């Protein structure tokens, strides 16, 4: 009974979603017809540009798939760097409040410097892959760190005591109690961090040597005033970000069934 109802509801929301996208595309097309400017392409010419870039490639011969793959590679590197630094430091700061007290006044102001503001400095100090990785890392690190700390802080003292009365040392408490109980928050941090890191891709690729990557594609065609390709690049960034977020959400749901059902 309730499954039928929830099935109907999800079918209904899919229909509404599709209708909403269709309406948006129609409105967009209508506006471009009215404005009739070469700088505001409609969905159809964006679609044609999409086919062109995907199959033939851009003026340098790189296809959309290759641009996406290169950008993904850069973002994943920065993401890994963010995870590898953010998780251990977050665990440490969550457990040792003195470490947190020492690190917070340094970290908090840095947290509000947007990745774009790091570009000039990174141009001077870094080059190539290290620069991409660093700029993505700036976006990934803080959500991972802060969520990890929050996860550690909500570890149940009783569970720590249970482990201690069985003879656990600090290592065992970390491994068996604190880490698994913070894991849902850590995963949230990774998901948010990956999203932000991905959104930093245009900033990271703003200056660069080789002309590949979705960010470079957008900037290259903005110089040519070929806005349809610019929009292809933007939409691709949006869709890939959406897909990654959804994939991690599914993973989280599977991993933390115990928690989803506890909280709902």
């Amino acid at each position, binding site marked *: 009974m309730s499954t039928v109802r929830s099935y109907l509801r999800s079918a209904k929301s899919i229909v509404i979603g599709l209708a909403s996208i269709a309406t948006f595309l129609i409105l967009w097309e209508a506006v471009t017809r009215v404005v009739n400017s070469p700088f505001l392409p409609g969905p159809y010419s964006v679609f044609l540009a999409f086919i062109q870039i995907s199959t033939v490639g851009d003026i340098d011969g790189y296809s959309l798939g290759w641009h996406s793959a290169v950008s993904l590679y850069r973002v994943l590197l920065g993401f890994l760097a963010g995870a590898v630094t953010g998780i251990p430091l977050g665990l440490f700061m969550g457990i040792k409040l003195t470490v947190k007290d020492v690190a917070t006044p340094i970290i908090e102001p840095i947290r509000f410097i947007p990745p774009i503001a790091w570009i000039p400095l990174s141009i001077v100090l870094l080059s190539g892959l290290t620069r991409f990785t660093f700029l993505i890392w700036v976006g990934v690190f803080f959500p991972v760190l802060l969520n990890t700390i929050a996860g550690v802080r909500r570890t149940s003292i009783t569970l720590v005591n249970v482990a201690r*009365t069985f003879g656990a040392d600090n290592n065992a408490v970390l491994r068996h109690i604190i880490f698994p109980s913070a894991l849902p928050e850590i995963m949230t941090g990774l998901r948010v961090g990956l999203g932000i890191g991905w959104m930093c891709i245009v900033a990271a690729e703003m200056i660069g040597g080789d002309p590949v990557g979705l960010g470079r594609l957008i900037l290259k065609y903005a110089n040519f005033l070929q806005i349809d390709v610019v929009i292809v690049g933007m939409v691709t960034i949006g869709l890939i970000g959406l897909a990654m977020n959804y994939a991690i959400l599914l993973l989280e749901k599977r991993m933390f069934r115990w928690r989803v059902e506890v909280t709902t």
Partner: protein
Amino acid sequence: MAAMFTVEHLKKSFETENGTIDVIDDLSLSLEEGRFLCIVGPSGCGKTTLLRILCGLDPPTSGTILINGSPPDPRKQKFGVIFQEESLLPWRNVFNNVKFGQEINKIGASDEIAKKYINLVGLEGFENYFPHQISGGMKKRVAIARALAVDPDIIMMDEPFADLDAQTRWILQKELLSIWSQLKKTAIFITHNVEEAVFLGQYVAVLSKRPAKLKTLINIDLPYPRSRLAAPFISYREKIIDLLREEIPSIS
């Protein structure tokens, strides 16, 4: 029989912003191997504090505690502690919760032993359930199985059945006694339910109000299983209630 467990002149005080508060003051107590001791006392008198010291979670301010001749240290001795609050790991199923103590204890987790204790507490068939999928009484059974699975030298329980309904509590009391009489483990059971203490304990230690001292140690000289309606049971119960009433004058 030698005392497996002795507490001498135990004191515990905490430093707070409002000054020092004495929670336990000059408490002495001992218990022989394999015996069942219940500890009752008025609410807030320091029972949980006492248990935390006994299992080595907190150090005493002064005094000595010996368990099998040495101060309590969960890394050298094996304790089975059951807390009043929810204490199962929510991300582990029943089976892996029961194995948890063994894993930590470095005695090597054994599936057979975990199974054995799951069966002993009557949870056969629930191995794959997660804590949020079982009832409060079942969670207590899992906690008991987990504590027993490390083959502890002593088992300590802090009001384990306090938040269960009366019927479930009675069933678990009976099962706890039957498990205890099979395994002959030294057991300490904290409760503020006097009837529960008289039903379970060979001895009942009555504590004073805070700071806790041993007010009286009563030997409950009744064979198991005990009937709650028998005259001697009732007279033990009334005697203890009277002792507690002296500690809380407002109850009349």
